[in-house]
Structure formats: structure tokens, C-alpha cells
């Protein structure tokens, strides 16, 4: 194993933090969705590293599952964003506070 497992985890943790900051701070629904995607990918990196570390294919299987879920999630999320944009003409999450 060329890259040590510790480095892989650090990379994945940094990516996760980036995704979190993106999802929490950006004032655009699409960017929030992107942040969520990045968080998912960070998790897949950790899975791949772990599969290599323990020589077990289950980690890679999980990665495939996460891809499928992420694809589905993105399609639903984008559809929701389009719907919301058509109704209100805005993709700023601070405008959607009817529940307040």
C-alpha cells in the first residue's frame, strides 16, 4: 500500500469538512446539494481506503451502493430545486421560511 491508511482518512475528513462548510454556508440550493455530494464522496474515499487496508471487498461494494444512492438523491434534489425555482423564482434558502 503506497499511501498509508492514516493519510486516506485525513483526506476524507478534510473533504467531509469542506462539504459541510459548503452545505452550511453557501446561499444557493444547488451549492448546498453539491456540498452534500462532496460529503458522500468523502465517505466513499474512507470506504475504499478501509477495503484496501483490510483486504475486504465489502468496502468497495458499499462504494457502489453509495454512488447509486447519490445519483438518485441528486436527481430528486435537482427536481425539487427546479420545482422551487419555478414557484418562487429564487434558489436562496433564506427565502423559504414559511414554517417560521
Amino acid at each position, binding site marked *: 500500500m503506497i499511501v498509508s491508511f492514516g493519510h486516506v482518512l485525513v483526506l476524507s475528513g478534510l473533504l467531509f469538512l469542506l462539504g*459541510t462548510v459548503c*452545505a452550511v*454556508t453557501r446561499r444557493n440550493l444547488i451549492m*448546498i446539494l453539491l456540498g452534500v455530494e462532496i460529503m458522500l464522496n468523502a465517505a466513499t474515499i474512507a470506504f475504499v481506503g478501509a477495503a484496501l487496508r483490510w483486504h475486504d471487498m465489502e468496502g468497495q461494494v458499499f462504494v457502489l451502493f453509495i454512488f447509486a444512492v447519490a445519483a438518485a438523491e441528486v436527481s430528486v434534489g435537482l427536481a425539487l430545486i427546479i420545482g422551487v425555482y419555478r414557484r418562487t423564482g429564487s434558489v436562496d*434558502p*433564506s427565502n*423559504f*421560511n*414559511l414554517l*417560521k
Partner: protein
Amino acid sequence: MTEPGFVLPTLTLVALATWLPAVAFALIMIFLRPHPRQAAGLSIAAVSVSLLSAVWLLIRHWHLSTPIHFTVRWVASGDLTIPFGFLLDPVSLLMLTVVAVICFLVQVYSLGYMAGDPGFWRYYAFMSLFAWAMTSLTVSLTLIQLYIFWELVGLASYLLIGFWYEKFSASEARKKAFVMTRFGDVAFFLGLLLLLIHFGNLDIMELNGPTPAERMSPLLLTVSSLLIFGGIIGKSAQFPLLTWLPDAMEGPTPVSALLHSATMVAAGVYLFARLLPLFSHSTTAMAVFLAIGTISMVAASTMAMVSRDIKRVWAYSTISQLGYMIMGLAAGGFFAGVFHLTTHAGFKALLFLCSGVFIHHFGTNDMVEIGRHGGRSLKIPMVCMIIGAAALAGLPPLSGFFSKELILGVLADRPNPIWVATALLGVFLTAYYTFRLIFVILFPRTVDKVKVQHGEDNHADRTSDRLMGWPLIILSAVTLLLGFFEAPLEHFLARGLAAVEPAGGHTWVLFSSLGLAAIALALSWFEFGRRGADQVGFVERIPWLYDFFAERWYIDRFYRFALDRFVYRGIAALCAQNDQKVIDGSIDGLSRGTVNTGRRIAFLHTGMIQYRLLIIFVAMVLLGMFFIF
């Protein structure tokens, strides 16, 4: 009671007689709403089986020596058991038969009277309800059971008085009847509780035995007798609570005939006859009963003298005849009271049903109107009404004559002559107001030549006339003949009771009552009947007396005043204040507090999804740190 072969058919018959109308009531209420004709058929079928059973029972047990009773345990909770069952003795057998006969005849009559009414099915359902409650009341074993059916009868009365509930006066009348009878029933119930606490048993047979006098002090006996009599006052419309009965005439006429003259109001008198041995322990209570009966009798007769509404006249006369029965019973004349109850049921139902024919034809209750429109052209009802009226006035040889003479004889036995004197005054008044009504209808001053139009359905009209005619003829026959069965009935009833009152041979009472009735008849002929009479009674010539009678001795005014003064302005006002200030105030305070607290914490809730996301992350991180380190 010993051999089952003897009891079982009796039990079946009693169950048939009492519970079949209940079945009919349930079936009509559930299934037969859209089929009024079938509803009527079912109801009449049930009541005729009930009638047959009752008559069979009467014949079967004509030589009854000891009362038959049958008991099952209905409710058992801890030490308390409430038995339920039938008690058959001569009085209940006789009453059961009377009730069944009148119920049957009135239901047949109603086929004609109520034809085409939109509430036809409802009418027959209520009639079945009444038949069930009333027949069950008569054969009740315990006072609790009797009380339950007593209230059910009251419910049926409420429903039937307000049968035409769209009419404001009818719905007012039903409320009045319900509340006033309930007023007496509260006293009745308190009396029952008193008996239950101090005697421990409400079995009618035990109450009538010698034990209550041994176990209860005379004061307690007097108080509980008076309280139970309160229920009788309410149900039988006696003196302080008498004004609901005339208003109850808002119901259909057959209902008045059945409930408010012949059977339901007589339930009070029946209860009195039932508990006569118990009441007899207390001479004070009996004196009070006698006084109340007398006051009601005179008061109601005077009110009847000035009323122009044909049904109200009969209602007042019902009160006064019930007063007679209570006088007779309170004076110790068991048979006199029960016999008058029986004969009165016959002739008063007859009078009401005849009036019903007139009201049906002419669409008015006013006797002068009926006379003017040619009331005498209706031959059968007119003749039957004269028969009934003569019985009411106590003219021989009709049934009323015999029973009234018996009561007068019993009263004449009392040492104090005031009772028999008042009763004779009552005889005079009764004959006067009865024949006032008859003469006003029979000899109207002016006759409208305009015939009342019956429309096109002449055929249907004739059928309904025939349906209404037969009960009249049967009841007239009963009225004519029942008096001659006095001796066998007395023999039959005497078996249930150990002591028989000695038959008083007061010929002077007989002659004076006949004389008074004849004078009253002549007076009413002079004032209302003869050619050229101006049809103004002697009471109407004295304005203050007329007002006094027409306003029902100001009893209603007094109730109105008491209600406004004490109930509305006193108790009701206090309750309203409590409601507004205490209850509303506390609820309002609670809800206002909730709203304010909500406002205050609402800043936490911004409705911004990213803040939530942030909080979720922070929470997850903190949780992770907590679990790892």
C-alpha cells in the same frame, strides 16, 4: 307458585303482555321508518297479543287466592341486589287488563285519526313504547322496578305531548309536563331511598306486610309516605302540580285519551292503591292525602267550568276524577278507588275519543265553534259523548254512577262531614260543567249552514270514520255495562286484601248526590240548553271569580313568579357568574399563558434550513466527541 306447570304458562303470558310492545318499539325504530303502514300494523299486532294475554291472565287467575310472584336477580353488586320480576295480584291483573284494552282501542282509533301524518311511524313507535312501559309498570315486583317504568312512562308522555314539535306551544307543553312531573318524582325517589335505608327492601309485598310498622318509627313512615305521595301528585296532576295536564292537551287527541286521562295519569292512583297498606300505617299522611285529593277535585272542577276548549274541559275533569279516587283511597275505600279508576278509564277514554272525532272533523278545539259548525250532525260520536258525559256526571245506570256512589259512601263513613260535603259539591260541579259542554255543542245559538269540506278523498274519510267509530261503540258498551259488574269485581279484588271495608249503607248520600246532579243538569240546561238561552254561565257573570278560575287559581302565575324570582334571578344568575368568572376565566388564563410563552420562545425558530443543518452537525460532532473521549 309451587307447581311449575302452573307458573310457566302464566309467566309466558305476562312476558308476552309486557314485552311484545317493547319488541315492536325497537323494530319500528330501527327498520320501519320508511314503512309507516307496516309500523302501525306491527304495533297494533303487538298490542293485540298483549291484550289477549292480559285477558287470558285475568280469566285464568279469576279465582286467585295468593299473589303470584316471579323473581330473577337483575343486578348484584356487593351487598346490593336488585331483583326484577312480576307480581300478579288482583289489582295488577285488573290494571293490566284495563291498560291493554285502552291501548288497543286507542291504537286502532289512531289509524283513522293520525292517517296521513308525516310522523305516522314515529307515533306508533312511541305508542308501543308507552304500552310496554305502562304494562310493565302494572306488574312490577319492586318499587325500584316500578320507578324505572314510571319514568319511562313519563318519557313516552313527553315524546307524545310534543308529537307535533314544530308547534311552539306543544314543545313548551312537553317541557312543562316533563319538569313538573319530575319535580314530584324527585320526592318519590327520596321516599324510596328513605325506605331502602331504613327498611332495606323495596319489595311491594313486604312493604305491604306488617314489617314496616315494626321496623320503622311512625315519623319515618309518615315522611316516606308523604315523599312517595309527591310522585303521585306529579304523575296524577294533583293540587300543587296540576297545571301541566291541561297544557298536555297539545298532543294528538288519542294520546290525551290514552296517556293523559285513562292510563298514565292513573298510574299515580294505581301506585297509591298498591301501597295503601303501607300508607295506612300513618294517619297523618292519610289525612294529608285526603285533603290534597279534595282540593284538586274542587279546584279542577271550577277550572273546567270556564274553559271553552273541549279537551281542556276533559283534562280538568280528569284531574278532578283522579282527586275523587285519591279521596276514596285515602278514606280507606280500597275497592271504591280502584273501581272508580277502572270505570273512569273507560268513560274518560270514550269522552276524549269522541272529542277527537269532532276535532278531526272541524279542525278546532273550541266547543262553541264545533256547535256552530253542526257538531250534532255526527250521530255516533254525539251519542257516545252523551253516554260518557252522563257517566262522568254520575247518572245511573252508567258505570260512573256506581263507582262514584262507592266513594261517596266511603267518605260518608268518615266522622268529619266536611269531606262528604265537598265531594257532593264536586258532584254538582261535575254535572254542571259536563252538561254545559254537551248543551253548547248540541244546541248552538247560531248554526253555520256552510258544510265543512272534506275534499275529494271521501272514501278514505269514510274508512277512517269507521276505524274511529268502533272504539267509541265498544267503550260506550263498556261504560253502559261495567257498573253491573261491581259485585264480582269487588269479590275478585277483595281476595288480594285481607280486610274488606264494610259497605256503607248511606241512602241519604245516594239521593242527595242524585239530586245535586239533577239540579246541576237543570241549571246547565237553563243557562246553555234551552231555546233562547244566552249561553253565559253563572260564573262568567262574576268577573273576578271567572278570572280566578280561568287563570287556574293563579297557580301558573305563582310558578312563573317563583321561577323568575328565585330560579332565574337567584340560582341561574349565580351559576352564570360562576361560569363566566371562574370557569371561563381560568380557561382563558391558561390559554393566554400558553400563547404568550409560545411568542416568547418563537425566536429560536427561524425557519432557515441551513441553521438546522449546522445545529445537526454541531450536535453530531459533540456527540462523537462525547462517545470517543
